[in-house]
């Protein structure tokens, strides 16, 4: 475990050096991330100008959920962006070299890219997060603080696990495009708003089938004691472990189907 973490850091560090060769990209991507997330925030603000509450959620409560999506996205992009390379890697036979190195193939894939635009997400998400924490109506008892630390720390792992799971579709689809996992990623963006505003089907998908809601909505309910079942949010660590295990399982299944490429 310690060796794996250390090697993971080594690989990411190497990737960081490589990425910094393309400095221009870094700025463009960061600004793009800031703009996308920023626009979403403006949208939220506009809605709450019209209606003061949605399903009992006030503006800053929703900002907290929103900021968690930006933060988890930032962490996932910065630390595990390699998941999104799976389609190309599998299609072009790029796993060949990965599979003959003595380090977990999945960890090699995950650390094979570092998304500097994650910084943009982290900066914006972080600012909104802090602002939201200041404004929400909550008394910060030690228990609440501990709960918050735990569920917020586990939230990004939910996203990383789901990224792995959906991107593993590459082993079955065999196309060099990530359209399929990207569709799910977009679906996951629905978790920016309180789950209660959606119909039953969407709620089921986001909380059970592909539990994207555990990266934002459920952790927020636990911390704010809002929603119909705040205790569900305490399951965030379980959801994170479950998603990561699912991702690992799919990757292992995928590897047995891996066909490399001719030549």
């Amino acid at each position: 475990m310690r060796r794996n973490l250390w090697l993971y850091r080594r690989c990411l560090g190497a990737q960081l050096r490589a990425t910094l060769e393309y400095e221009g990209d870094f700025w463009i991507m960061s600004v793009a991330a800031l703009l996308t997330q920023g626009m979403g925030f403006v949208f939220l603000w506009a809605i709450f100008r019209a209606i003061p509450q949605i399903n009992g959620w006030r503006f800053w409560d929703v900002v907290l959920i929103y900021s968690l999506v930006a933060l988890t996205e930032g962490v996932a992009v910065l630390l595990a962006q390699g998941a999104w390379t799976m389609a190309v890697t599998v299609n072009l036979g790029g796993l060949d070299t990965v599979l003959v190195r003595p380090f977990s193939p999945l960890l090699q894939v995950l650390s094979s890219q570092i998304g500097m635009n994650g910084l943009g997400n982290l900066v914006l998400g972080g600012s909104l997060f802090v602002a939201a924490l200041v404004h929400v109506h909550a008394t910060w008892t030690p228990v609440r603080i501990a709960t918050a630390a735990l569920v917020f720390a586990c939230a990004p792992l939910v996203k990383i696990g789901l990224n792995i799971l959906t991107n593993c579709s590459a082993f079955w689809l065999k196309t060099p495009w990530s359209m399929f996992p990207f569709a799910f990623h977009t679906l996951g963006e629905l978790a920016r708003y309180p789950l209660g505003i959606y119909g039953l089907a969407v709620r089921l998908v986001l909380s059970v089938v592909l539990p994207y809601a555990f990266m934002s909505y459920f952790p927020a309910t636990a911390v704010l004691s809002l929603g119909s079942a705040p205790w569900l949010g305490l399951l965030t660590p379980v959801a994170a472990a479950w998603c990561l295990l699912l991702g690992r399982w799919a990757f292992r299944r995928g590897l047995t189907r891996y066909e490399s490429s001719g030549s």
Partner: protein
Amino acid sequence: MARIEADDLRKVFRRPDKGPGLAGSLRHLVERRYTEKAAVDGISLRVDAGEAVAYVGPNGAGKSTTIKLLTGILVPTSGEVRVNGIVPHRHRIENARGVGVVFGQRTSLWWDLPVRDSFELLRDMHGLGAAEYRENLDRLVEMLQIGDLLDSTARRLSLGQRMRCDLAAALLHAPPIVYLDEPTIGLDIEVKDRLRTFLRQVVAGGTTLVLTTHDLGDIEDVCSRLVIIDQGRIVHDGGLRQVIETYARERVMHADLASRPVSLSGVAARLPGATVTEERDGLGVAVAFDPLAHTAAAVLSALQQEAEVVDLRIEEPAIEDVVRRMYAGQLDAAPGERTGT
């Protein structure tokens, strides 16, 4: 002790059976049809420690697929494989510690990193100690002459430079088994020669080697055993020397001359058994000879007695020629050879 044991290995690829064009692709969406192709079709192979095996065959014969099965990259459709006593596709990490692999068409170096950084990442993955790493690296840098390349990124290396660095990367942890899939593809003669010398040293050091190539020159001085594969099956497995002596004896020396005329019959008379033909409108001569009957030096001196030679080159038979000749009904293998169909 057998380092590599493969038993009746098969790998079947399923390919979508699409008609031509967009219409074909659309039809495939509705009515899925596949053709199955056995790229490797029942291969059994034992390679002992220290053996150097040349694995050759025509394009699409299944060489690369075999290597991918032996290295655990692909999971076989059926059959068994053990390398260093373990099943490679079940214990990939453990397997990776004991083997080195180079795919000629693909680099294992990190594309945007200096070569040295790639090596250091591999060092850490293999868990090599500082002293061991230094020692191995120094040896490889010297043998492959890559000292000047360590600080450039893989992206900037020429093909030959990259291949040498890739070889070093595969051998950093001094693996007992090395697989090389067309390590000399696209390289010029000088780099090829350097690589061949290097491979001889590696084999002399006791490393087990499996080498695929289309170039007879790669294997002649390196490998002692020749395995020929065609359409996924082994069609010959035996000593390399006998095959070369039986089917690849003939060399052709092409000489450019300062002036014509040259007396072809005069040259032929000095070299009994050799075939002498005119080239380039009389400004060149080709002599096909058996190296056991005449040395290259003898052929050259015979030529020089008849004309002034300004340039020459010796052509070796290609593996494809050898295989073709073996097929041409003359598959009378020498005693002690294992030959199958």
